[in-house]
């Protein structure tokens, strides 16, 4: 099976002001198949945003790519020339940033912000650019396309701004779209609308997506596979249905347990949600061993000293946990 994107043992660290290195991605490997939606589930500090930025070479100056490869169309993007990268960004691989309220230029009309991207990738002469821009806006805004394209970001609602970000990402018909928390600041109805937009785009454009979120419920019925991120490492990776309904990694299980259920009866007595105990060593990640060990309800001696590898539970479901080692 050909994969569109392959990440191999990616290790990225940030250098703090006093020279210390803190690991953001600690050996991440996975691949992305054509036409699939990969949900990346991670909480703050898990490294999910670093992952998104590193795929396109957008990491800040104080970051260090220690090792690894990002393979796309036969090239390693980590070793690509700036010119090559610039040609790929927005055209072959697009990134939808978090926080639509700050990801758009404040004094440029949003239509122009999309047209500029088409222009940067040489998508035709002026008339062609205008036509393509209109097309994209009509896909996302139906009847209001004209009015929205002429608006400025501060005149639009959160949901509309999010759609503009999507428009920017799909304008050049990329093969891969990476969406970083695309629904984080939206209310449920708008969230659902945006998810429907993605579903439509997937169907009509055959988009391959990486959908990054901290809310597992969003991936339900949307993602094909789910990758669970913890402390810069892959904790669990498998078909969405499996991971979301019967997760294997203790972190994933604990995470899902901490979400209040909508469908069970609520009585006044049962008010405590199971939580994951805090990590006493938050600033000093352990050198070796499983990063979840200090908080893991099922930890064993071996978890402290050795890095758990990957255990294949089934054809495509794997877990990084010693609990499953001897099956």
């Amino acid at each position: 099976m050909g994969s569109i994107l392959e990440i191999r043992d990616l290790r990225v660290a940030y250098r703090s002001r006093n020279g210390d290195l803190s690991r953001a991605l600690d050996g991440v490997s996975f691949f992305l198949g054509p036409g699939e939606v990969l949900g990346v589930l991670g909480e703050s500090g898990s490294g999910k945003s670093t992952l998104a930025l590193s795929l396109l070479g957008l990491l800040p100056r104080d970051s260090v790519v220690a090792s690894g490869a990002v393979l796309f169309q036969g090239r390693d993007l980590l070793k690509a020339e700036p010119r090559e990268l610039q040609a790929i960004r927005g055209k072959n691989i697009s990134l939808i940033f978090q926080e639509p309220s700050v990801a758009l230029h404040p004094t440029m009309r949003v239509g122009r912000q999309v047209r500029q991207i088409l222009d940067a990738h040489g998508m035709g002469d002026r008339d062609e650019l205008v036509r393509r821009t209109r097309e994209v806006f009509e896909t996302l805004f139906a009847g209001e396309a004209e009015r929205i394209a002429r608006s400025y970001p501060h005149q639009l609602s959160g949901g509309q701004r999010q759609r503009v970000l999507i428009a920017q990402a799909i304008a050049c018909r990329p093969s891969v779209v990476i969406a970083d928390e695309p629904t984080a600041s939206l209310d449920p109805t708008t969230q659902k609308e945006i998810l429907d937009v993605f579903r439509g785009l997937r169907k009509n454009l055959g988009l391959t997506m990486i959908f990054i979120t901290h809310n597992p419920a969003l991936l339900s019925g949307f993602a094909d596979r789910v990758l669970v991120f913890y402390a810069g490492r892959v904790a669990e990776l498998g078909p969405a249905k499996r991971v979301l309904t019967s997760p294997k990694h203790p972190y994933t299980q604990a995470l899902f347990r901490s979400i209040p259920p909508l469908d069970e009866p609520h009585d006044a007595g049962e008010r405590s949600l199971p939580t994951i105990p805090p990590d006493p060593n938050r600033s000093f990640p352990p050198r070796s061993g499983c990063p979840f060990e200090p908080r893991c309800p099922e930890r064993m001696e071996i978890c402290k000293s050795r890095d758990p590898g990957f255990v294949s539970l089934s054809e495509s479901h794997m877990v990084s946990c010693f609990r499953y080692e001897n099956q």
Partner: protein
Amino acid sequence: MNTAGRDKGMQPLLEVGNLVKTYSRRRLAGSGEGVRALDGVSFSIFRGTTLAIVGESGSGKSTLASCLACLEKPTSGAIRFEDKDIVTLSEEDLRAIRRQMQLIFQDPASSFNPRWGVGEILIEPLALQGNLGRDEMRTRAHALLEQVGLSSSMEAKLASELSGGQRQRLAIARALMLEPKVLILDEALSALDCSVQAQIANLLVDLQSSCGMTYLFITHDLAMAAHLADEIAVMSKGRIVEHGAPNKILNQPQSVITRELLAAVPRLGFAGTRVAES
């Protein structure tokens, strides 16, 4: 409305009657007539209980929060706190009431001066009141830090060094410094990770059972609202369209708005099944 207290025959702690808040054209950019952010809202909350206000953005939830926290004056209607009408109070009397109803926002980062230490942030509300000596304030700050699950050794840390969950705990501790009776939580959990939301939710529940804290929990997260609240009120376009116990709202929603809201909530697991353990 809220039956929990009524059974005991008590007076509601907070009673809102027909609250209306209109914003005139001048205040808003590019809108038409004045907008009725609140269009006749009424409810009551009894001491030690939680009322959740659930609605979409633009339903008027945040306006409600500011009016109740006395940050804005409603256009008309009554707000009764401990059976006193607070809408007509003078600025001085209002200050005393504000102490008792503290507001906690969604974005913990923007409500603190990032250059201040945790200790200073906590002491500020009391220092402004000017009643206690510095040592007393520090003692109280330490006690509250422990109570919200932060350690008192964090006193010197800068607000910018705290995580999102820690900042919300700090916000709650700061609110508690004034010994309020009501906490108005305006999307206070929405920006946090799921596991952190659970921690803060548990903290809120603990505080309620140990201090008899009363909560007005404003959110668009129906699941969390159902988990925390004794009663849920669904808001849309400045009005309460439905209210009742969580079980009733979730399982027998009467209003179209409620049903739409329920349909829009993303659910973990497939076909409504709960996550199965391995």
